[in-house]
């Protein structure tokens, strides 16, 4: 290091001011030890990831196919992923102030990390290399670069401090439910999550102290140097220096204090770096990585069963991607808050599930966790040894509580996909016969008759008997639309009326449509999500055989669940026709004038079905329809992709829900009641059934009316104009029935 004092003013500073060679040696040795620890920790984790089962979908990354139609299952590119990370978009979503604070810490920390890296580049590399190879020491750490460096990275430091302060304040002052670590599933012998809280605070205070001591050192250095004018560029350090001076720390005293605080800062910083891979701080690496490899297709199109297993039974079943996802969890608790199972008092919290799995997988891989583990007096749950995964590490009651509503996946700021992992574990429960007797009989009924009602497969189209026209059998005559009716709409007495209404409206609008009659089976969406993969495949084979014997242009469904599997999963089995939801079809028909309507002048609210809104982004069509019918739509606080599940999904409709404190459908109904509206609109047969019950159980019968969109449309149907239209155009031409231009779904992943 050559520093020429004869030069009047060089805008730079000494590195290692005052520390002798011995001190420096200790510093470098410590740094080396820190880096070894850090990379050893990272190495352990990488080893853990790569020990995972390579899934058919790829280890971490499913390449997006060129020319893939933009769809809800499209894998976003690397750029989009990086952008999500850089902007903290997913962290800011739903929680703007927390998100902004996090963004400040995020970029502040990156800034400070860059600052240290740049200094090390100059001091340790450029200077040494130039001296060694060129014989003369070069440095870029001076002049305008030095000034800009200080100005910019001071800003980073201030941002980091403000952000951290905000996050600390929130954690201390606001008792938000998602920050409460109380478990949803209570282990018999008890548990303690004290370490989680300690880890959180250690992380926050560690960062805060690191940031603050950095500025204190800067202030002391500037104080020591008698406040050179150019150091005003180091604006925050300069202010801190003035403060030191103001409290009576002279240049001499500053020189005396400096090393002590410097060592404190250095030891804390090195300690922190070594701590990262074994603690909550690891999320700085794992979360962005997980967010980038996140694949929207995974939940919508469930992964395959691991080879040789019927579902997840052991450690080796977890894929690298899943192992990374466990590590990515920051315990932010957003999933815990939105989960309908947890809200209803069921023993499932997606947060707890991920944390349990992480702790268990880490223990099996002998990865130590510092202040990042749950303690239990016994060896249960995440502390269990090598044991059955589903049913032991995660209780079967927990796994069966999931409605697969996908709210957790949607809300997770770091891209964890809880649902596919839950289904993989359910698959092994099904294999072991560990399930509700009612679910078992539903599955048996589906296996034998193709419907969960246990009714004869031949009775499937019996609901059509009440119609004064015959719905074409798409297997016998060509139709434009094939209506995949679904179990509930076909067999449930309460819902058959709705099915007949749909048929009547479409018939009156002259739409060319048909059904598969007794060729249709349960589409299998919920069978698959209940974990009965073999039965799902059997249903798909049966339905595909019926579909390929039929002649049609496109499919529409009334049931959002069937819609999801037909749209996202059946293509893998050869389905090539487009699939739409009846809300989309009806909207097109109304907006294009094919169905004449009168204004209803009602005030209604609308419940977004999980499988329509969250899974498939169909949110505008039902709203456009409601408005086209002259209704004023009042939104519930939880709407669109933030909708709250009715509790029926993922096979839950076949299971006992009497143990719940409050059914999700009742919780939802109360949300609607609070709006002061008296019409609760749905676009899903299961919703109609669930909420018709909920209206009664929350004591709103007669006050709140549950209405399917088809009932609204039926009521608004303008018979006179329809008559006039049919006179003017006696035969609606089937070829005209292409409503391609209307409102369609908002497609693509967010």
């Amino acid at each position: 290091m050559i520093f020429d004092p004869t030069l009047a003013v060089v805008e730079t500073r000494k590195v290692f001011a005052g520390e002798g060679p011995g001190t420096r040696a200790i510093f470098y040795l410590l740094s080396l030890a820190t880096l070894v620890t850090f990379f050893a920790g990272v190495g352990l984790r990488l080893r853990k990831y790569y020990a995972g089962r390579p899934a058919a979908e790829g280890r971490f990354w499913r390449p997006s196919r060129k020319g893939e139609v933009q769809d809800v299952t499209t894998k976003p590119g690397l750029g989009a992923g990086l952008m999500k990370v850089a902007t903290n978009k997913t962290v800011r979503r739903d929680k703007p102030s927390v998100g902004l604070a996090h963004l400040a810490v995020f970029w502040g920390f990156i800034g400070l990390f860059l600052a240290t890296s740049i200094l090390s580049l100059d001091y340790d590399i450029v200077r040494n290399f130039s001296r060694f190879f060129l014989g003369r020491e070069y440095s870029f750490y001076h002049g305008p670069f030095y000034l800009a460096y200080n100005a910019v990275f001071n800003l980073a430091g201030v941002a980091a401090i403000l952000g951290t302060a905000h996050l600390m304040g929130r954690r201390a002052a606001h008792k938000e439910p998602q920050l409460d670590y109380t478990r949803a599933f209570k282990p018999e012998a008890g548990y303690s999550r004290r370490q989680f809280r300690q880890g959180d605070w250690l992380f926050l205070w560690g960062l805060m102290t690191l940031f603050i001591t950095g500025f204190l050192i800067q202030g002391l250095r500037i104080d020591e140097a008698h406040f050179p004018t150019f150091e005003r560029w180091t604006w925050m350090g300069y202010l801190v220096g003035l403060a030191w001076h103001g409290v009576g720390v002279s240049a001499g005293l500053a020189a005396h204090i400096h090393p002590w605080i410097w060592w404190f800062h250095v030891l804390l910083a090195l300690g922190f770096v070594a701590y990262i891979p074994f603690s909550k701080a690891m999320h700085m690496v794992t979360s962005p990585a997980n967010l980038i490899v996140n694949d929207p297709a995974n939940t919508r199109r469930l992964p395959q069963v691991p080879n040789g297993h019927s579902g997840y039974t052991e450690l080796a079943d977890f894929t690298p991607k899943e192992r990374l996802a466990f590590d990515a969890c920051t315990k932010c608790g957003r999933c815990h808050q939105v989960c309908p199972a947890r809200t209803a008092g069921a023993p499932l919290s997606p947060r707890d599930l991920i944390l349990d799995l992480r702790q268990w997988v880490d223990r099996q891989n002998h990865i130590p966790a510092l202040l990042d583990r749950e303690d239990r007096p016994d060896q249960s749950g995440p502390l269990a040894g090598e044991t059955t995964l589903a049913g032991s590490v995660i209780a079967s009651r927990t796994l069966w509580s999931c409605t697969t509503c996908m709210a957790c996946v949607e809300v997770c700021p770091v891209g964890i996909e809880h649902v596919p992992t839950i289904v993989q574990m359910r698959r092994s429960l099904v294999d072991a016969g560990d399930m509700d007797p009612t679910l078992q009989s539903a599955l048996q009924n589906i296996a034998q008759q193709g419907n969960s009602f246990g009714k004869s497969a031949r009775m499937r189209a019996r609901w059509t008997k009440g119609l004064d026209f015959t719905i074409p059998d798409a297997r016998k005559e060509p139709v434009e639309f094939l209506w995949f009716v679904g179990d509930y709409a076909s067999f449930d007495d309460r819902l058959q009326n709705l099915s007949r209404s749909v048929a009547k409206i479409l018939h009156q609008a002259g739409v060319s449509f048909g059904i598969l009659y007794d060729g249709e089976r349960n589409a299998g969406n919920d069978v698959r999500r209940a974990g009965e993969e073999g039965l799902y495949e059997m249903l798909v084979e049966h339905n595909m055989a019926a579909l390929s014997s039929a002649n049609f242009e496109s499919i529409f469904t009334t049931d959002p669940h069937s819609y999801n599997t037909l749209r996202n999963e059946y293509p893998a089995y050869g389905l090539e026709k487009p699939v739409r939801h009846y809300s989309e079809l009806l909207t097109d028909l109304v907006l294009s004038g094919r169905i004449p309507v009168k204004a209803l002048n009602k005030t209604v609210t609308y419940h977004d079905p999980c499988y329509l809104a969250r899974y498939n982004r169909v949110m505008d069509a039902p709203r456009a329809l409601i408005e086209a019918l002259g209704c004023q739509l009042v939104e519930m606080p939880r709407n669109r992709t933030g909708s709250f599940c009715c509790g029926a999904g993922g096979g839950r409709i076949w299971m006992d829900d009497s143990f719940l404190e409050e059914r999700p459908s009742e919780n939802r109904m109360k949300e609607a009641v609070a709006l002061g509206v008296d019409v609760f609109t749905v676009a899903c047969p299961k919703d109609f059934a669930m909420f018709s019950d909920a209206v009664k159980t929350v004591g709103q019968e007669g006050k709140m009316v549950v209405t399917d969109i088809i009932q609204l449309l039926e009521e608004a149907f303008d018979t006179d104009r329809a008559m006039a239209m049919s006179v003017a155009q006696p035969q609606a031409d089937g070829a005209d029935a292409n409503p391609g231009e209307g409102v369609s779904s908002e497609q693509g992943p967010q």
Partner: protein
Amino acid sequence: MRIVVAMRQLADLVEELEVDDSGTDIDREFVKFVSNEWDEAALEEALLIKEQSGAEIVAVALDEPDVDQTLYTAIAKGADKAVKLTGLEEGWVSTHSRAKAIASWLGDQQWDLLLTGVQAADDLDGQLAGILAAQLQVPHAAVVVSAQTEGSSVKVSQELGGGTIVEETIALPAVLGIQTARQAPRYAPITRIRQAMQSGGLEEASVAGDLAEGRPTVRRLYPPEKTGHAEMLTGSASDVADKIIELLRAKGLVKS
């Protein structure tokens, strides 16, 4: 311990059954055949015995429509072997003939305990357990709700109606007609059934020959005529509720 579970196929009662042209049998052509539910209970009880004290389970059934499905399902649930008895004419097999077919197959088998469903929806000429046991000249018990083996005997609980249970010990070999198993029949995941199918392994044995015809001659099979149908109450739920309360009030069962 070798346990034989005698199973059978039966027209699915979910279906609407029609009588064929002869007027003496159901129209078997378009009816779906499923496993007899009481036989499923028998299989479950056998599986429970196997789990408790170890046993080899052999499921056996006559070759009737879709019987493969039932036998493969039994294997998927834990049966060690499944045997299909062929050679009988298709149609309504009498219980006496069924018993004789099974007895003739059992003749060259080594077995300790035979479990079967207590009854079936078409066993007009009696229930299999008693008939088979009498043909084999071994002890039997029917309407069994629990069977647990103890050495060379089996401890059974029989249900006498009204919830009264009688417990007995029966020396093996014995035949039991199972009413319910100690737990509901387990679920057979479709994947396992398919695996069983892929690995094959259904044994076939021919039982053709002289079979009993102990059944009285059926001369007519017909759906019951609706005698004395209820008077139907119609209208809204509220209307119907009013009428019901009125009826109960007339009986003095609802106060004023």
